């Protein structure tokens, strides 16, 4: 009799183990699903933030490069180039514009370039050119050359107001309304010998 009860108890125990294992498996699948979903949301959010940050860095580097290329070009004239005529400031401005035009997230309303040059002995910018008609196209601050009777100054200012490139939504709010927009601008000054 005791032997029979033992057998029944063992059988019952096996059954309970089997049911418990099945339940454990089902719960694990559910937990993994929830975890994956939560992780995915966090990862996607992090990726979006990373993409927006990289975008800001990329545009910032491009604007720095545009100003440098343009100002270098603007200074190539007269004695520095075997007497060739000095490039027009509009051409210098266009150099900067060509560097930036077409970038994702930038349009004529949120970025601008401004080139300016002074004359020998002058006290302000003599020639100026704006390449994008918006509030970002303001003239760079005038600075005279330390030897103004011989040299002149060329300046190129490039700036842009940046919004999140990946405009994701979180809790019903767009990233563009959560993250602040940033205005990034650089002015490059180069010297020129007339």
């Amino acid at each position, binding site marked *: 009799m005791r032997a029979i009860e033992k057998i029944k*108890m063992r059988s019952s*125990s096996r059954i*309970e*183990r089997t049911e*418990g*294992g099945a*339940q*454990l498996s089902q*719960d*694990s699948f559910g*937990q993994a699903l*929830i*975890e994956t979903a*939560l*992780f995915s949301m*966090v990862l996607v959010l*992090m990726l979006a933030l*990373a993409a927006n*940050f*990289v975008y800001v*860095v990329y545009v*910032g*580097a491009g604007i*720095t*490069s545009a*100003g*440098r290329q343009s*100002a*270098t070009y603007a*200074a*190539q004239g*007269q*004695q*520095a*180039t*075997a*007497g*060739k*005529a000095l490039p027009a400031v509009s051409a210098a401005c266009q150099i900067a514009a060509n560097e930036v035009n077409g970038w994702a997230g930038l349009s004529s309303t949120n970025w601008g370039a401004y080139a300016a040059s002074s004359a020998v002995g002058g006290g302000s910018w003599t020639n100026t050119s704006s390449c994008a008609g918006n509030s970002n196209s303001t003239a760079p601050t005038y*600075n005279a*050359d*330390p*030897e103004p*009777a*011989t*040299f002149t100054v060329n300046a190129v200012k490039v700036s842009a107001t940046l919004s999140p490139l990946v405009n994701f939504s979180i809790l019903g709010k767009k990233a563009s309304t959560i993250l602040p927009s940033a205005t990034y601008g*650089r*002015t*490059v*000054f*180069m*010297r*020129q*010998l007339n």
Partner: protein
Amino acid sequence: MVFQTVHRTDATCKKTQPWQNRQHNSAPDLRNLHRCESGQTITVWLGAIVVMSSVLMGSAYDMSVAWMHKQWADTAAQAACTAGAMDMLYAANNGSTSTPVTAYNFLSSSSGDCATNSSNAMCYYAKLNGYASLGLTSNTPSNDVQWSMSTTQPANSNSSPTLTKTLNGVPAYMNVAVTENVPVTFMGIFAHSLGMMNSWNTIQVAGHCNCGLEGTTSSVPANTIPFVAGIIDNWGSFEPIAAVTCWSNASCSMTSSPVIGPNNPVPSNTVVPVTVGGRAAGQGGESISGSVEGDISCDGGKTWKSFDTITINVLGSSPLIGNTSCTISNTNQIYLRVAANLRLGSAGPIFPAGNSYTVQINSASVTIPGGSTTSLHITSFQNN
């Protein structure tokens, strides 16, 4: 996953510890075991992700900022180097060893640091481009601009010929280095949390630029041969010569003082195109006849060849426009002159007031008004 082996010990879970069940029943309650451990994985993973992503993103942020500062430093170095090269060019073109303003002269020095001596164009333009160069302070946001001059062409330059010095003895090359201690945000926090309290407040970046004067066409920054001034004096001397020597039906020959071109080193067999334009004329009611020819010497005035001859036999003016070229090398100079064989009806200049004479060497040209004493400074010309 190893995290799943960690068992919770909170009070709630103690009530249903599987080994407690096992004391009363031979089979452990795996469902309770699972409930006790549910959430452990996500908690640990979330913690790990937060920590790791904070480290990675913080480091990425700091490195990105440092990289941006590197771009700015490069720009400032290029602007400063260009400014210095412009001074070198000015000195070379004017046969000087000084900058136009003596207070900013650096050409007699071999190197300098803007933190201790900022009276020069390099430091000024570095400052305009954001680098005031107050000197580097360890572990503190700061920057410094240093420059040095050299007679050796930079290794990364492929221009030819190599200039060792300009004609006035000033080295032809220079280097500007902009160094900056950029403040770091997250990397400093991580370092401090690891006990490195005095480190990682800043990360150092540097921008460099080599520049100078070169003999061939290149882009940045100053791509001209530094020519000394070519001087033409007293083109108006024609007038007194004509008036005195060739008075009243006299036949005479006269030659102008030559226009002397630059004599800076150029590559061997450099071909330089030359264009001369102008007008020769009698004046008023005074007749003039004869011929005027333009001559060029490619060897410093030793030998001459005519590149254009015009016949003058009427009142008024006749054009003198010629095109020629010189093959020169090293320090040979180009000389230009005008030779006239004239018969004058009466006194009068052959380049009277109101007319002009133009000398053009490539794209550089100067117009000399007739009837006056004019000094011509040919600033530069391009080698083809």
